[in-house]
């Protein structure tokens, strides 16, 4: 039995402390919003394939903070080359968690490459990520959650296998300027 995505994301963010979070478009943005809105969240509603790279730019700008990207399999597949870029740049404070339902959930649940067998954690490992893993149980999700708060020697990518289902949406703000300024204000940065 595959995991339910909302409890998975809630567990990943449990006691999140000063984690900075970037979410990939679609369900991961809704899941993170459902777990609790925060000024330290940057929700993407488009620019498919950008999430991990937005996280990397943020991680490079804020080396003293841990950055977590929560995205979906389809979103990460569109940014597959970005895994090579992240592995070579090797920001130690960046983690990516792919909520993998094996489908393009926003567009009619068509099977994705991961649903056809591709393993994004194996791709990340081949690229040279410092740590990779795959969770199929809540205990393993908890282990990932704990690892997110521990120092790492380089970027990390974890895959969590979840059910393919469209849950009631929990919609974060769609105003990209608002959430940008809210995020920057939370870091004490000027907003205009």
């Amino acid at each position, binding site marked *: 039995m595959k995991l339910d995505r909302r409890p998975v994301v809630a567990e990943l963010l449990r006691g999140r402390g000063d984690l900075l979070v*970037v979410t990939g478009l679609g369900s991961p943005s809704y899941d993170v919003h459902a777990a609790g809105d925060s000024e330290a969240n940057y929700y993407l509603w488009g*620019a498919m394939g950008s999430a991990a790279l937005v*996280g990397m*730019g943020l*991680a*490079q*700008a804020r080396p003293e903070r841990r950055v977590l990207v929560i995205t979906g399999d389809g979103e990460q597949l569109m940014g597959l080359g970005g895994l090579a*870029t992240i592995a070579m740049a090797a920001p130690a404070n960046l983690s990516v968690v792919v909520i993998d339902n094996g489908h393009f959930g926003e567009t009619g649940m068509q099977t994705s490459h991961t649903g056809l067998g591709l393993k994004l954690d194996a791709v990340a490992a081949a690229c040279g990520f410092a740590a990779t893993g795959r969770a199929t149980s809540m205990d393993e999700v908890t282990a990932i959650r704990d690892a997110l708060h521990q120092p790492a020697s380089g970027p990390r990518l974890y895959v969590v296998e979840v059910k393919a289902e469209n849950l009631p949406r929990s919609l974060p703000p769609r105003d990209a300027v608002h959430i940008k300024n809210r995020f920057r204000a939370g870091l004490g940065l000027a907003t205009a």
Partner: protein
Amino acid sequence: MTLALQTEPRAQDGALWPDELYAALQRARVTQASYVPDAGHARLIQLLLADTAITTTVLTTEEEGIALAAGAWLGGERSAVLMQSSGVGNCINMLSLPVIGRFPLLILVTMRGEWGEFNPWQVPMGQATEAALRAVGVRVFRAETPEALLDIVPAAAVEVYEADQQIAVLIGQAIMGKKKW
């Protein structure tokens, strides 16, 4: 194959224009840069990579640099993206992010396919570069001489980082000279 430049690309005071461009980025307090290489950007890339105060990232495709720049700004840093005109075509949907989020974005584009071009495959995207950028909402400044380029970049940097603009500076192929084969 040699990628050496045929012309000596010098600015008014005799310095190489990529060196002046690098100095302009330093003065604009740019601390992150990313690139897909182009022969016209070779020296600037070399200077950026040698600078430990600027984190410079090699990309697999240009749109990654657009996302990186947005992330850098979320964290309080200024980023510049270097590419050739063919790479602009790779960026179009990713430009939704800085355009709709009003993220500062400075792209330095070395042009191909417009002046002394030997490779016809560079022509379609080279000819479409300016229109494609404008169509998605990125402003375009264009330099045909090193002097103009060095006037434009500091002005563009002010608009980008102080006024949240998305600007591409197109570096005319005539500035680089013909590619040697």
